[in-house]
């Protein structure tokens, strides 16, 4: 019965839920879904993490390569982040090159990482002008059920935290390279950026409702172009606020969003740290 109602009167159905202050999966407006995080499960990658935020599943794998640094920036390494939305993660996508939406997500994620300055590209340089690390981070979405950016950032940061760089010997005379995989050092990570997504729903014209950690269906109901508001924090500083589409925000909404994001950030930080500590004790 409910399914039919949802299909025939999607907007009314959704409004009914909102008016009794509940969401379709039983959450409150400001409640986020359960997060499950697992690191280093993929051995072929140099570092990896699997994140499940509710149904949304993202796998992040890091591959290391070596290259000559750019002539303009001889002391910087490379950090290449890409978000893949393969056709299997949702019926919205078709096989082939990345859709416009995938590119937008890709850009948002890479901007957040860049702005948070959590990785100093200088740390990735081995010998200036000669050799530098290229860190390829591929975030693959296996199941797309909303709040993709949050999941991507968690997966990416968790795998950064576990990334170990092998030691490299570069002989300047012979230009010979030797890599020692047994000696590895941690990559320095400055802070722990976390993103929080909201859907902004305009309920009966004037009332603006913020839905924390929206599902795919909720995102669809609020404009259909992913989450409307993404707030990212790193070390107590904001490192990116994106507001696109959905309802318009008043000052109060804005304050509320920032407050919620702060809370969420603390919770997520706890998860990541717990996960990494667990790893430490188990080894």
């Amino acid at each position: 019965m409910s399914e039919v109602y949802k299909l025939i009167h999607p907007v009314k159905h959704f409004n009914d839920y909102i008016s009794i202050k509940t969401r379709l999966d039983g959450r409150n407006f400001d409640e986020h879904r359960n997060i499950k995080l697992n690191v280093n499960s993929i051995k072929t990658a140099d570092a990896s993490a699997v994140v499940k935020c509710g149904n949304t599943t993202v796998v992040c794998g890091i591959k290391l390569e070596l290259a000559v640094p750019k002539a303009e920036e001889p002391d910087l390494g490379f950090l290449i982040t890409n978000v893949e939305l393969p056709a299997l993660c949702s019926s919205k996508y078709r096989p082939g090159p990345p859709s416009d939406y995938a590119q937008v997500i890709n850009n948002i994620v890479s901007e957040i990482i860049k702005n948070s300055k959590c990785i100093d590209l200088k740390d990735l340089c081995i010998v200036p002008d000669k050799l530098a690390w290229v860190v390829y981070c591929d975030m693959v979405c296996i199941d797309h059920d909303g709040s993709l950016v949050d999941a991507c950032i968690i997966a990416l940061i968790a795998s950064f935290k576990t990334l170990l760089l092998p030691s490299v010997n570069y002989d300047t005379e012979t230009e010979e390279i030797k890599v020692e995989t047994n000696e590895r050092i941690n990559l320095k990570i400055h802070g722990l950026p976390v993103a929080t997504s909201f859907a902004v729903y305009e309920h009966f014209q004037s009332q603006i409702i913020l839905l924390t950690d929206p599902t795919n269906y909720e995102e669809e109901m609020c404009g259909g172009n992913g989450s409307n508001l993404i707030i990212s924090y790193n070390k107590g500083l904001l490192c990116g606020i994106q507001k696109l589409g959905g309802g318009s925000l008043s000052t109060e909404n804005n304050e509320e969003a920032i407050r919620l994001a702060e809370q969420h950030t603390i919770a997520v930080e706890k998860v990541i740290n717990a996960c990494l500590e667990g790893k430490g004790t188990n080894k």
Partner: protein
Amino acid sequence: MRDTCLSNCEKNFIQKIVSQGHRLDGRNFNETRKLDISFGSEYGCCIVSLGETKILSEVTCEVAQPKQIRPNEGIIFINVELNPMAAPQFEANRQTDLTVYLVRLLEKCYKDSKCIDLESLCIVVEEKVWSLRINIKVLNHDGNLTECASIATLASIAHFRRPDFTRDGDRVIIHTLTEKDPIPTVLYHYPVCTTFALYSNDILLTDPNFLEESVCTSNTEEGINTAGGLLVLGMNQYREVCLLDLTGAAIYTSNIVHKALLSAADKCKKYVEIIKNAVAKDDNLRQKREKINFSDIITTEHMLALSRKDLNIQLKHYDVTELDEKDEEMFSDEDDIKPEPSKYDVVATVPNTAELKSKEGKSEWIEVSSDSGED
């Protein structure tokens, strides 16, 4: 590309007034529209408008590997883009016959005529050369794209300057524009294309607009082309022909080509002078450290233009340090009020895994059906 419709009335009307010696916009047969060249703030960037036809041209350069058969020559790459901005019938990011045609004509005119000194673009033989990319973007398509595009190309090449470099042993250092003055490109001669619309095989219309172009290349109701076509001639300032291209009907007599050539030679020479003057004038201004920018094309005299210089607003001036303190206080207050217990538990279950779960089993299944809305 969506089709543009041309009504029979329009067709017949244009045909008729041309045969009577008139043009729709009141010009003479050999009169061109107003030419205007404006340069952007960067070298090699210009907007050329020929009447309402507007084209943006930009030359950029990068270091590339030379082709194996020509190890000491630079590379020129011409790209033409027609997007919905030019006219609604064009689709974005799709090559059409028109773009291919334009690229080919421009390549013939500027690459095949060898007007650019390619050897001067060489940095290290067989390893590094400059690769110039000429990007032509049609902003508004009101006929005679070829002529406008060719003027834009020539103007931007003449205006373009590439960074200087010095060789230090094996290494090549490329200097920024502020370190060393950039170098202009060497041009042996200045070829320009001109277009004539051919009507009933004896009338030549200089600089046809969009309507005139479409009428002369379209078919009549009977499906026969009425001896109309487009004749493109490329010539340099020495009255040498670099390019000749005819689309549409066959020409009965060669006289008409002679006639066109004579008229084209004068026109091209005039164009080349205008371009040279424009570049020289721009160079002069730049040497006087005057800012040149595309914002100059917005003429304030235009009826639909508006300019506001004094956009002032009075705002409270925040003293940042003061504010910070206050906020900190506020925050500490807040912390006292609500050390809200986290609703979530962090569980480290399996090795390498952590989980965040909401404490209470909140996920009660609540369903709303259509009846409940009426409660």
